[in-house]
């Protein structure tokens, strides 16, 4: 078995677990005093596990959101939709595999358009998908599907999981900023329900381009932030080591986003994160998406656009 991916904040816990396993492999008959020590450690382990996972700080959640084994857009699309048809291409330059774009049918029978950042599930696919960081053609592909969703009255479901739009030379030269801006404009005008689900990383404009609508559902350990804690730490703290503090200051966790009036709902994850047991999480997402769509049933297209605008309109804090 390959060594599991250990997150910084889990180190002490895993160290203790290893220690305990070691002792347990020894012969307690030969050293009876071990039994007591083992019991003590076992007790300590229970305490530590609780302490580690009960109150995860934002930085810990960011690490969980980035966990390589965390369920990806690929898993949600595969598990939540039947009759999936993926479509490709921006009709001008290329097909960006960092964005999934297609159509699927939810368990309840609703046919919907589906978009998502796609990180890949193994090294080979990670590379093909550019680790989920789209180029402009990815957003232009997404816009094609948005237009089809609008034309054919299909609700749009998006899965957010990107560290950000790719900051490369060609991405800039081919209009990363324009592609994102046009996507924001288009999303705001879609005459169909738009449900967004934050399943992992919500990296700034690269996430936002397919990341706002009529509902924002966040997984407990997913984050959504204007900037990565690391970059924020470099810029505002002049110190790369302050990522954890920055993560706390940025109010980027699911719970905080609900308090800020940006997210609508938080989907709990099993102790340690969705990667520990993904099935119930994915199932819960499906239920939440169908519930959100049901809430929006029967609202006229113009009503959806107007309500979405008012929703955006209400975001922002200032004195007047």
């Amino acid at each position, binding site marked *: 078995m390959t060594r599991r991916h250990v997150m910084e904040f889990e180190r002490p816990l895993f160290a203790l677990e290893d220690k305990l396993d070691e002792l347990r492999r020894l012969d307690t008959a030969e050293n009876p005093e071990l039994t007591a020590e083992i019991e003590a450690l076992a007790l300590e382990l229970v305490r530590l596990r609780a302490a580690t996972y009960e109150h995860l700080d934002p930085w810990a959640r960011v690490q969980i959101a980035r966990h390589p084994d965390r369920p990806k857009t690929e898993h949600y699309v595969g598990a939540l939709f039947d009759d999936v048809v993926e479509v490709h291409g921006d009709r001008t330059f290329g097909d960006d595999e960092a964005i999934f774009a297609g159509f699927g049918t939810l368990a309840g029978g609703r046919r919907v358009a589906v978009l998502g950042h796609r990180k890949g599930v193994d090294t080979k696919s990670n590379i093909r998908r550019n680790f989920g960081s789209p180029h402009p053609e990815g957003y232009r592909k997404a816009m094609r599907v948005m237009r089809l969703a609008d034309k054919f009255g299909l609700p749009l479901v998006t899965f957010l999981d990107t560290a950000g*739009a*790719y*900051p*490369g*030379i060609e*991405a*800039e*030269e*081919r*209009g*990363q*900023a*324009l592609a*994102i*801006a*046009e996507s*924001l*404009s288009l*999303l*705001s*005008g879609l005459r169909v329900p738009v449900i967004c689900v934050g399943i992992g990383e919500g990296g*700034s*404009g690269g996430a*936002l381009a397919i990341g*706002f609508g009529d509902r924002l559902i966040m997984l407990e350990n997913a984050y*959504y*932030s*204007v*900037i990565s804690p690391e*970059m*924020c730490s470099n*810029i*505002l*703290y*002049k110190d790369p080591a*302050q990522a954890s*503090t*920055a993560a706390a*200051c*940025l*109010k*980027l966790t699911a719970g905080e*986003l609900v308090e*800020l009036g*940006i997210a609508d709902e938080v989907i709990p994850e099993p102790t340690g994160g969705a990667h520990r047991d993904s099935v119930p999480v994915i199932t819960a997402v499906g239920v939440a998406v169908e519930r959100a769509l049901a809430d929006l049933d029967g609202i006229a297209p113009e009503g959806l656009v107007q309500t*979405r*605008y008012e929703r*955006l*309109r209400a*975001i*922002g*804090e*200032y*004195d*007047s």
Partner: protein
Amino acid sequence: MSVTDWFSQRERRRYTRTGGGQGRPGPSEVADGIWVQCPGCKRALLERELAEKVRVCSGCGHHFAMTPTERIASLVDDGTFTEIDASLTPRDPLGFVAVKSYAESLSAAREKSGANEAVLTGRAAIAGAGVVLGVMDFRFIGASMGSVVGERVTRAFELATEERLPAVMVTASGGARMQEGMLSLMQMAKTSAAVRRHSDAGLPYLSILTNPTYGGVTASFAVLADVIFAEPGAMIGFAGPRLVEQTIRQKLPKGFQTSESMLKHGMIDRIVARTELRDTVALMLSYLTPRAGGGAGV
């Protein structure tokens, strides 16, 4: 007054009055005697002359940064600008504290800029035609977009939609206002939605990208204009050059993210020298008049 009449009139008084000078905040009045070195050609320029020449180097044409007051004086008909939403001022919604607290950054910015936020919006006339104008102020926390910038820009487009006026935005920005977290990111969506409604009403929007325009501002309202102008040599992009360099681990191509590169890559319509800006904007807007029917296009 017709655009053409206006042009002929303009010729007489073209950039000869000290509009720039008048526009400068108090302190610089006394600074009119001082010299500035041009980063372009290293010439020493007299501050007063620079102000009279819309802050363009007479030697190499380098475009110096402008204050919103100078920008307005150089762009719109004299005395036609009236600010709106000046009373909107920033809060500290996240209680953000870093090396400096957000509160400290804000007061420092007010001190430095004499402004109360990073964008100035209002009504104005260009060549006699009414517009809604927005001008960003890089001195105010790098003209980053927080709740107030987003709200002022959004209200400017809402006003323009209501009164069926063209919108003109002079942008400069380092990106989002980190200290407001997701509230600032969402301003990208909010402003983009307001621009869309203005456009769907068949109304014209012209943006002028100045040095530097980056991040969330570039990736939202700045590039959603019907026509996009940029000043010469302005740096324009989504990701900052340092981040790009770190990501790709190679040197950036010469001219990367300059207006000239943006033009070459098809992202902007024209590079317009500041000395030509007012006339070119007036001329451009004279073509972009709402049609009788109005409504969304093809």
